[in-house]
């Protein structure tokens, strides 16, 4: 049998009718009913759904600098298991990804691992310090071909600097992904400000701190005619502002995390720091508004904000704990639970918000493509009827900080094809894809 040929037999394409997909040499060679397998390896996919490989617009891989939290290798293993074929690695590493050298390093690590495409995100400002633009053009021109720029974790709060960044990235079709958090309104903030924070005596993180920055930024984007992406939208008010901006024709896209679609600040009553995240978990009303916004297109994409931390950063007092949750291996299931099983979205919509549009925002040309003949074979097979209980200790990510621990969720990724190569089979890691430059090194072993 040919090593690089697979016939996926009888998968429901985007949840619609069952068809076969023939994969050969990294591309979809044919799509149709009752295709001839020839010498291809047959993957029986009855009952499974075929979707384009997911593209995460917001991932923290922690390397370089915090290899005790995650590495490119472990993070991309988690990504492949979660159904991803591309991730955008955020810039808040150490050193910060604010030069061509660092983004090329992350890019190279991603290619050496071979589990997914690793698209580095470049920092907007030097050292994420919010004072001086990083060399955005150099990162754009580097081998990493950076198109998404973000100081994620820290807001580009200086309005002049934000304006300049938005203007400057137009030169290479880039986008500024803003972490919307007004710093003065959130000094010492520990959780969403509202009924629960009042009782718990934890510093409040008002919704207005997010909304005021988004309102400013959409107006700036309109003024300079640039492209803005809003990271991890978490409030109903933010949704209203983005809806308004889109109605005015402003070029803004927005993401929501799986955890903000499911969890609320009521969980903080436990003081368990696994629920500590930035932006914070909000109220049930916010959750409902976010689901509706994702369904109606106001929010464009899912971004996991996968943020692994070593256990000691979570096994402590709430105020001492790091902010962030893992998400790559639970995203599909949480979106199925919150958006598909609720009837708000179809699997075709799922493909749009997890693959097509995030690839477009990140300008990842060979990802997020239709499942048609001639297209790159980045494909996942999902068992929508599966149910599983989340155990952070059984995940590929090094982070044990899953807020879904112990929760039963629907949906399982059975297979992931990355560039026509199965990185995941039968729900388990298979072999990574070998890029031409690494294949030589491996065969040399």
């Amino acid at each position, binding site marked *: 049998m040919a090593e690089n040929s697979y016939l996926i037999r009888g998968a429901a394409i985007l949840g619609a009718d069952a068809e076969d997909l023939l994969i050969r040499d990294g591309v979809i060679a044919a799509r149709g009913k009752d295709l001839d397998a020839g010498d291809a390896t047959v993957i029986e996919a009855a009952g499974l759904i075929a979707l384009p490989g997911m593209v995460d617009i917001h991932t923290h891989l922690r390397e370089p600098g915090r290899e005790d939290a995650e590495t490119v290798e472990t993070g991309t293993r988690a990504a492949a298991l979660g159904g991803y074929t591309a991730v955008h690695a955020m810039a808040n590493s150490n050193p910060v990804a604010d030069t061509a050298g660092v983004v090329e390093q992350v890019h190279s690590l991603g290619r050496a691992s071979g589990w997914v495409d690793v698209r580095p995100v470049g920092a907007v400002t030097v050292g994420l310090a919010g004072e001086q633009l990083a060399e955005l053009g150099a990162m754009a021109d580097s081998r990493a071909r950076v198109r998404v720029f973000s100081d994620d974790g820290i807001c580009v709060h200086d309005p002049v600097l934000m304006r300049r960044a938005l203007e400057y990235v137009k030169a290479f079709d880039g986008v500024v992904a803003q972490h919307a958090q007004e710093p003065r309104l959130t000094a010492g903030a520990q959780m969403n400000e509202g009924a629960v924070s009042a009782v718990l005596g934890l510093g409040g993180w008002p919704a207005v701190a997010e909304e005021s920055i988004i309102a400013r930024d959409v107006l700036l984007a309109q003024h300079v005619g640039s492209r803005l992406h809003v990271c991890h939208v978490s409030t109903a008010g933010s949704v209203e502002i983005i809806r308004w901006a889109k109605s005015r024709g402003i070029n803004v896209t927005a993401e929501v995390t799986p955890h903000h679609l499911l969890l609320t600040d009521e969980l903080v009553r436990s003081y368990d720091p696994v629920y500590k995240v930035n932006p914070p978990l909000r109220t049930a009303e916010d959750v409902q508004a976010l689901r509706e916004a994702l369904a109606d297109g106001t929010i464009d994409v899912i971004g996991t904000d996968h943020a692994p931390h070593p256990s000691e950063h979570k096994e402590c007092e709430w105020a*001492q704990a790091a902010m962030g949750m893992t998400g790559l291996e639970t995203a599909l299931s949480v979106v199925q639970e919150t958006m598909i099983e609720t009837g708000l979205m179809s699997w075709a919509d799922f493909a749009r918000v997890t693959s097509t549009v995030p690839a477009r925002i990140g300008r990842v040309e060979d990802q997020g493509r239709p499942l048609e003949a001639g297209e790159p074979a980045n494909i996942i097979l999902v068992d929508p009827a599966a149910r599983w209980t989340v155990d952070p200790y059984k995940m590929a990510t090094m982070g044990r900080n899953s807020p879904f621990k112990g929760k039963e969720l629907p949906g399982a990724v059975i297979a992931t094809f990355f560039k026509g190569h199965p990185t995941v089979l039968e729900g388990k890691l298979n072999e990574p894809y070998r890029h031409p430059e690494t294949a030589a090194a491996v065969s040399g072993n």
Partner: protein
Amino acid sequence: MKHLLSTQDLSAEDAIRILDTAEEMAAVNEREVKKLPALRGRTVVNLFFEDSTRTRISFEAAAKRLSADVINFAAKGSSVSKGESLKDTAQTLAAIGADAVVIRHWASGAPHRLAATDWIDAAVINAGDGTHEHPTQALLDSFTMRRHWARLHGTDSQGTDLSGMRVAVVGDVLHSRVARSNVWLLQTLGADVTLVAPPTLLPIGVEHWPCKVSYNLDETLEAGVDSMMMLRVQGERMNASFFPSTREYSRRWGFDDTRLRALDELGLKDTIIMHPGPMNRGLEISSAAADSPRSTVLDQVRNGVSVRMAALYLLLSGDTREAVPATTQSKESN
């Protein structure tokens, strides 16, 4: 009861049981030999991550009068200041054999973490956590109020609650663990609570609390009040735009001499003035008010020992009657 973390999850039955037990302890404290053998052989650790000499010596006196062995662990200058985690500290205390940990911490929820994790199996008493709760302070305040309320009604305080008592809690509610613990406990015991504060020092979400809210202290006095509980204004609030100046704060929300006279003029002859201490004389309370016969400040300190004895006794004496679960969180693995 396994732990005492909060007054919010304390039932009326449990609260009254603690207060009644504290009355028995108070009788011990009247004796020449102020000591009971109840907790002989048991070890109580006072684990203080924040300086509070008043609270620490109150707990120390309480534990010693019950014959417990007391270990004082002040985090400053200790392994904690060298970066030891709460988890390691807790496991160390567990290995030493602590039966109860009295924890004071600057971080809200730290006592809940000790109680909810498997780091240590001891009874946990919250001696003030961040801006969250200070349940033994609220219990000693209620103890003090209950004695006053019972005396006014010519009854014995044992078994009674605070039904019908009008309590005003005045000052920095936003940052006050004392206020939070008092609101929940006073509501449980049947009192009518009014929070009086500048709008900047009330939390967003206070409208959900079981109490009234006022920005006007004089109107609250005129409406009639049986207990005035003045909260301490922390120094660091003064330069953070919570109010324009200490003088303006004092004029609008301080219990000054004019308001002390107003109690007489309004015919509120039995209204008491409370303060958890330490006081900022001349800011939230005038010296005349603090030293007046209406002031219960020293009664509160005295009652604090009795209430803490009661809490330690009930948690450690083997009285295992199940109370309301002290925490909603299940045990978490490491």
